């Protein structure tokens, strides 16, 4: 009798579930569906033609290049940071963790702006850079830097809680048994954190390929040269090339869906082997 009262009446359950699903359909399913239908309004031929435009292909190549530089660098950084933070005690540790998280609370536009102020023509190092013949702003290095900034915390914040939880005992055992430091890392630590690392890499990569605001500020939008996929979407859209814009967008949406699928799979299968406090 009492138990019956810790859940809602059947009609209330239906009503709440219906409302929640209606809300999610409106805000999640419909935008996704809109991308697909808009991309295919003129049929598959136009869709594939739009994707094989030379400028689209160069945008895809640039996006892949930027991710191929930014993601591995952030992986190396994430591994170093989590090793230093979780295997040692030192003053200022919690400050360091807070600093690593900073890029997540900075607006993407500001993430791009800081590099313009540093390396742009009127920037602090701008004149010196020009003399040296370096170009960072309105060039690929700027895009890579801005991408590194916005994706900076992803790997580290996955690994830190995970390695903190796993402690230092296994590494210490391996070391006392005579294994070298790097060997210990490779054979003990890395296998222990592999799913957490993969999880961080997935999220980092999705953001790196999809970043818009920060990259938009430093790119200069030079077609065929400094145009990434998200920036190309904007250009095509503003030129009323709706099929083209949504065709490129559909590739990015596919990337998002694959990321979500892989992420969910990791969460279901390796729940205990990836960090517990996600995202929050």
């Amino acid at each position, binding site marked *: 009798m009492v138990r019956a*009262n810790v859940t809602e009446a059947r009609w209330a359950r239906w009503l709440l579930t219906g409302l*929640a699903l209606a809300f999610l359909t409106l805000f999640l399913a419909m935008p996704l569906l*809109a991308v697909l239908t808009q991309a295919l309004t003129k049929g598959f031929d136009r869709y594939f033609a739009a994707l094989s435009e030379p400028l689209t292909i160069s945008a895809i190549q640039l996006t892949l290049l930027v991710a191929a530089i930014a993601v591995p660098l952030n992986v190396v950084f994430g591994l170093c940071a989590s090793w230093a933070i979780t295997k040692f005690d030192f003053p200022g540790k919690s400050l360091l963790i807070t600093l690593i998280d900073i890029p997540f609370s900075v607006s993407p*536009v500001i993430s791009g702006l800081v590099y313009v102020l540093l390396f742009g023509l009127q920037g*602090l190092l701008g004149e010196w850079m020009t003399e040296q013949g370096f170009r960072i702003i309105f060039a690929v290095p700027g895009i890579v830097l801005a991408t590194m900034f916005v994706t900076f915390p992803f790997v580290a914040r996955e690994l830190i809680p995970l390695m903190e939880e796993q402690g230092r005992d296994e590494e210490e055992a391996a*070391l006392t048994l005579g294994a070298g430091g790097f060997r210990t890392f490779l054979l003990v630590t890395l296998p222990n954190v592999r799913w957490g690392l993969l999880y961080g890499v997935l999220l980092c990569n999705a953001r790196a390929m999809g970043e818009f605001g920060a990259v938009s500020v430093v790119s200069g939008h030079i077609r065929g040269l400094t145009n990434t996929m998200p920036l190309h979407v904007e250009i095509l859209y503003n030129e009323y090339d709706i099929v083209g814009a949504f065709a490129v967008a559909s590739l990015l949406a596919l990337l998002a869906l694959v990321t979500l699928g892989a992420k*969910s799979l990791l969460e279901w299968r390796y729940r205990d082997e990836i960090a517990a406090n996600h995202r929050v």
Partner: protein
Amino acid sequence: MIGARSIPNRVIPGFGLTLGITLVYLSVVVLIPLAALFLKAAGMTWAQWVATFTDWRVIASLKLSFGGSAIAAALNAVFGLLVAWVLVRYDFPGRKLVDAMVDLPFALPTAVAGIALTALYAPNGWIGELLEPLGIKVAFTPVGVVVAMVFIGLPFVVRTVEPVLADLDSEVEEAAASLGAGRLQTFRRVILPALGPALLTGFALAFARAVGEYGSIIFIAGNMPGVSEIAPLMIITKLEQYDYLGATAIAVVMLVASFALLLLINALQKWRHARLRGAS
């Protein structure tokens, strides 16, 4: 923990190397560029600050960014709680899929979300078409800005509330029920207070994200000066007019606001964990 701490740090190697790499990378990618922003701001005269923040367009854009974010985060608090509730408490076919889809706004590139939402809410879009006869305009108005902000902030509330809701002790609810409380009363007086800190954290996270958001908003906003122009877009507009000081001033104000929010969120989380520990 105590055992691990009593072992000298020396057993595990690589402290200097990993901390060194961490600090160098953190400085080059994040800290020095951010310092450049504050350095630029420090060089501004009082008159330049006043000139920027008495500009009606700047004032309107800040009002829209902060006001719109507050409305969106409040909507997210309500609907996010509803979604979390349904996902944790009820079982229905496809629940796991729906749960995975909640993270879509994290994974979908913002430019894609932006053009998809615009396609839906434009006067000839699936939803815009239905609203037009009712005289409701969403796309290219401040309402559209809020719609995009709701989209981008949704996962924050769901993901902060979900684990707390799942861990909620059912005995307390049973006790309330056996003492004669109705379901709604139990929710209001027992469940909601327990969810309070998580809900507030989710609200703050969604708010912070919406304030800085750019890509998903600018397409649906229409960007009419003084009406539907958000603060991050104002920064870009100033940059395009070579008004670097104006851009810097707006960025500094937004950055200080988001750091204040970050501190608030950290404090909220500490409070939550303290409460959790106190309860168990």
